[in-house]
């Protein structure tokens, strides 16, 4: 803590795992605040356990028996004397009930108040709220509709192509695209049936389907004294399965004027919800440069480091300061942007097999470094990647003076990063960094679907690979490996090759 700042928390419990738990612990340590980690049985040796000041077990591997068990986590908070709780992202981070339980237990929840979280968690309610402030929405119905005649009228007004979305839906489920008016009736029946089956609520709403939209989001900070600032945008258009893989700031197409307008819209939305702490307002940006409100993420985002690089701020520090009741201490005019930053999510997935997740053990880790490189991760030699949690291993984030330089730097850093023992998205990212459309900044949410081909991440070095494979086979046969033969690489290698051939 810096001299002169009000008393911060005496101890913080980090209610998460993986790279984000590590991330939060790092800033706590820099602020001089002791941390308490929680872990499931399979995470005993995890990095966040090692780096925290204290660590306690909260149950078996499945998340609903450990990281989602709010009462077990509150018990650890009580026992360890934690004064605040940082939820990270995922797990309980957007659970208004849990935030309320923290408050009831006298534990400061590092995030927005439960009321704002609940309001923004209901997607249609959130839309109505921000629309009251004049924030633009994707044209569509703003109420769930059951009446078919009304839906046909609404569809004609909105225009085609359009989307039918389940009112109670989420996570990309219950969404149907309709290309032409004559397909509407059949699609409606299908969607309503599905919505009833999946969510017990047959109501749907309609939204215009944008062509090749960009996903652009605005980072906000809001203190408990009514001060709001935005830290500019992140472009997160490159996605697979509606989940982001690459994020950057600034967006290649957002001008200073557009940044200001989107930032102001985001602040209006936050004000309407009474939002405090760090939050992100997501927008779609169409090819004409018009933006539309999508939703608010009421937590720290995975991709927050790109904003940290360009603005020079530590968002976790700001979150903790805000939750402790401090004023922001700076205004919109004090926010400056320098250079460009990009993040590649390194996940345990096989990009050549439709990004199928991959479990296994990290045999060796070689990290990139040098100017402008940050690698936030949960890896170490011996780390096990299990099927219980999501596939994110780490985030490679680089900064440089401009976008052209930052793409080259990312390519360089990806080349230095080796995670031996797992399939990862590294080759995909290396391909993306040198893709002409990517380099030109021509991004949209279908970029991967339209451009990525399995195998595209392997450069044309087959002849060298043949030499390498043959010499490696000879060399490894000729002399024993340095550390004995407990897991003989060549044989595991062949076994895995066979398994892959059968499963593809």
């Amino acid at each position, binding site marked *: 803590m810096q001299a002169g700042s009000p008393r911060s928390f005496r101890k913080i419990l980090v209610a998460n795992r993986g790279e984000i738990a590590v991330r939060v612990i790092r800033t706590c340590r820099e602020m001089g605040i002791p941390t308490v980690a929680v872990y499931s049985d399979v995470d005993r040796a995890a990095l966040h356990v090692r780096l925290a000041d204290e660590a306690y077990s909260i149950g078996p591997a499945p998340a609903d028996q450990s990281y989602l068990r709010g009462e077990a986590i509150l018990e650890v908070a009580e026992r360890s004397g934690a004064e605040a709780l940082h939820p990270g992202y995922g797990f309980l981070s957007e659970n208004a009930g849990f935030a309320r339980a923290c408050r009831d237990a006298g534990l400061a929840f590092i995030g927005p108040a439960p009321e704002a979280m609940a309001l923004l968690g209901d997607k249609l309610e959130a839309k109505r709220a921000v629309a009251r402030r004049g924030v633009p929405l994707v044209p569509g119905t703003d109420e769930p509709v059951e009446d078919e005649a009304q839906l046909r009228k609404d569809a004609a007004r909105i225009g085609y192509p359009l989307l039918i979305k389940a009112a109670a839906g989420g996570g990309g489920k219950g969404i149907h695209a309709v290309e032409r008016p004559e397909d509407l009736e059949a699609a409606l029946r299908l969607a309503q049936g599905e919505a009833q089956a999946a969510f017990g609520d047959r109501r749907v709403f309609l939204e215009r389907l944008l062509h090749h939209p960009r996903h652009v989001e605005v980072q906000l900070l809001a203190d408990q004294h009514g001060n709001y600032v935005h830290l500019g945008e992140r472009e997160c258009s490159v996605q697979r*399965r509606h989940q982001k893989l690459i994020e950057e700031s600034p967006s290649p197409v957002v001008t200073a004027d557009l940044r200001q307008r989107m930032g102001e819209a985001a602040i209006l939305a936050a004000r309407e919800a009474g939002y405090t702490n760090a939050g992100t307002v997501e927008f779609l940006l169409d090819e004409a440069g018009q933006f539309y409100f999508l939703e608010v993420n009421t937590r720290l985002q995975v991709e927050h480091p790109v904003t940290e690089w360009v603005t020079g701020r530590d968002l976790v520090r700001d979150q903790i300061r805000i939750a402790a009741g401090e004023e922001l201490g700076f205004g919109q005019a004090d926010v400056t942007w320098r250079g460009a930053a990009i993040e590649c999510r390194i996940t*345990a997935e096989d990009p*050549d*097999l*439709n990004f*199928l*997740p*991959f*479990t296994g053990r990290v045999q*060796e880790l070689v990290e990139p470094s040098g100017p402008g490189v940050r690698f936030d991760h949960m890896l170490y*030699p011996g780390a096990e990647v*299990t*099927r219980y*949690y*999501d*596939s994110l291993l780490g985030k490679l984030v680089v900064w440089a003076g401009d976008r052209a330089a930052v793409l080259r730097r990312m390519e360089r850093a990806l*080349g*230095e*990063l*080796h995670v*031996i*023992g797992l*399939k990862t998205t*590294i*080759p995909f990212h*290396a391909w993306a960094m040198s893709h002409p459309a990517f380099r030109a900044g021509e991004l949209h949410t279908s970029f991967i679907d339209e451009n990525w081909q399995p*195998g595209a991440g*392997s*450069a044309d*070095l*087959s*002849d*060298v*690979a*043949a*030499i*390498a*494979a*043959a*010499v*490696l*086979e*000879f*060399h490894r046969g*000729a*002399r024993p*490996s*340095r*550390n004995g033969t407990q897991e003989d*690489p060549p044989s*595991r*290698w*062949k076994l*895995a*090759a066979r*398994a*892959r051939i*059968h*499963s*593809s």
Partner: protein
Amino acid sequence: MRYLATIADRQFVVEVQAGARPGSYAVVMNGSSQMVDIEPASGDWLYSMLIDGRSFTVAATPDGVQLDGKDFAARVQRSLGPALQAPGVSSEPARLQAPIPGLVVAIHVTAGQEVLEGEPLLVVEAMKMQMDLKSPRSGKVTQIAVAAGQEVAHGQLLVVVDESK
């Protein structure tokens, strides 16, 4: 020593001879000869390889080699003769194994059913994701070794598809 190296779907005959110093090798491929120097770097899995002065970082990966961060599916076998095998179509039964430990969520086929190559056979859930596992070949489902709701281990046999006759 003569090797047959299969890189993705291309095959190479590579002749390797030990050189004067440990880690140095003379390699002949496609009629041209090169000096290769290999040296362990960063533990057991990563090597520095110099091929006539060109520097590569080579890693053994689960299904091949990695060169400067790019993955190559690779298989190496001792080659006794100079003839190249054609990448033939196998008539053996194809055994679909679990590519990842997980939970069998649904099975789309029944024993005896005819399926096409690429047709989804069952759904396995792991890491918060559901994945369709597809038939490795066209033929008849001769065995379904698991049931919906069952946990499966990595490599566990799921379904066998045989030639239909």
